[in-house]
């Protein structure tokens, strides 16, 4: 709405921008690594910290994303904005909904069809990640062609009339 009211030419004070970005990074680190000591310490984290983390982490996280969205929409995102605007994301983003739906079937089928259980090693984990992501998007192409597009076109025709 700011974007509508004031256009996207709004220039942010440089100091505010730096301050906001630093706060965002700190929030991000808090969100990502607060549970880490829980895995390190035998006793785990104390209950109050866990409760605080669970109730607040999502709020903090959405502030981070909100800040990124804000900076990018006034075209002051810098490097982050440039990376996020790469045109390689375009086709993938069009497949995103199908991919989200199909990925659980793909991953489960691949994992549960194993004759032997996995013996996990670092490279196998990475290997799994890459192949699961690749095959999910590949399956998403099929889902988009056969499931999504036909109904998308029908909807377009219906709403036009």
């Amino acid at each position, binding site marked *: 709405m700011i974007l509508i009211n004031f256009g996207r030419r709004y220039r942010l004070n440089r100091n505010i921008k730096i301050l906001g970005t630093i706060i965002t990074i700190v929030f991000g680190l808090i969100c990502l690594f607060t549970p880490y000591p829980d895995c390190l310490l035998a006793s785990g984290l104390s209950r109050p910290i866990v409760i605080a983390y669970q109730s607040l982490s*999502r709020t903090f996280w959405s502030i981070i994303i909100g800040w990124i969205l804000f900076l990018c929409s006034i075209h002051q995102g810098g490097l982050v904005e440039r990376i*996020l605007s790469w045109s390689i994301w375009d086709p993938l983003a069009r497949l995103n909904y199908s991919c989200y739906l199909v990925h659980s079937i793909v991953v489960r089928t691949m994992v549960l069809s194993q004759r032997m259980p996995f013996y996990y090693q670092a490279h196998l984990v990475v290997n799994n990640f890459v192949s699961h992501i690749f095959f999910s998007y590949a399956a998403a192409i099929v889902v988009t062609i056969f499931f999504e597009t036909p109904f998308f076109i029908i909807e377009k025709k219906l709403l036009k009339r």
Partner: protein
Amino acid sequence: MTPSSPNATVSLKIILGLCVPSSCDRESIASLMNTLFNKTDVTKTDLSCSNDPSNGQEGLTSGAIATCIVLSLLGLIVLLGTIIDLLLLSTDQSIDSQTSNINTYTSLTDERIELIERPGFSLRTLIDPESRITVLAEFSAIRTLRRIFTMKQKKDDDSFIFINGIRVLSLCWIIMGHSLSFNLSYTSNILDLLVWTRNVFMQLIINGVLGVDTFFVLSGFLTAILFVRQVKKEDKLSLRLFILYYIHRYIRLTPTFLLMILVSINLTPYFGEGPVYPREKGFESDECRSGLWWTSLLYVGNLYKPHEMCFDIAWYLHNDMQFHWIAPIALVPFVLGRKSISFIITTIFVLIGIISILSILLYYPNMSVGVLDAFVDRVSFVYMFYFEESVFFYVYSLALLSIKIFTLLLGVVYLPMQLVLLLV
């Protein structure tokens, strides 16, 4: 399993794998087990054989046949569309090449030109570009592929190209999390995995849950922007706008979602085989298979019998749709110019969210909260958190809120600037 956790009904069992020749029947395996372990309570109902027929019967079930028919109908439409599209393309090209031929060989007699032109004509009348048949060409697989893979970006000021990057990266993060978590029950060295959690980088994978939160924020951001933009365009809040607001999203999401559920219920038993592959039921629960899918149709699966929900990852869709329903509560005051009211409403949403998590945790003091615990203990906090409470409420509303905070901030900055300009 902690006995103090609420409705603790799940008991963990040891699953033993045994390789026997396929000529053995269940009866003899059960008796073999009983002699081997000196126990007598192993019956053939405890056994699950990897060569059991899919869906519990030989051949296809009626559900699977129905699904196949639906899928082949869709396939047929796309196939027809592709053929017509190809024909259209080839006639276009042949006409082009003919006209160029005619242009170069101007010395040709009229008769010959007629001869050359005729086949083009007949093809053209066969597939008249204006006719209804060409509508089918829109379903063409080639067109869809071209639409997906065009990289040309609109450089106008209204689009948010950077959102594509966030969406794709978040989904990759989520798939990484799932790729590990779906597999936890079927590993030889699960203890190694637990040791790995001492590595800082594992935190990045374990916390992939936050990727879902990112989606909620994006969804809130886009909903707010599009809603306000639409109202600005029409200059008023019409009933039509509201109906479209609700219907549009519903019909964009539902058909694909339902087809995926259909496939997941009926066809996944045939997708694979192996000692742990669920040949009997596929990936869906009994309740879902016997008709609980209507909760997905209405997007209330996370509220009614959440543990039996179809397509378990779809809890996100259910939540998101519910937020979409309630978002106008905060958006309408905003577009009516009462920005402070919508600011208060969103703040209340955020507080409801925080307080509800807090109260759940305080009410069940022994609830386990780790993400990894959730896979062992199905009644843990994370599980309940996702499926039973719409606590995500507040992430969504915070997305709305964050935009509004910025608006207020900017309003504060903007007004004095205008005053200064006026004075100058």
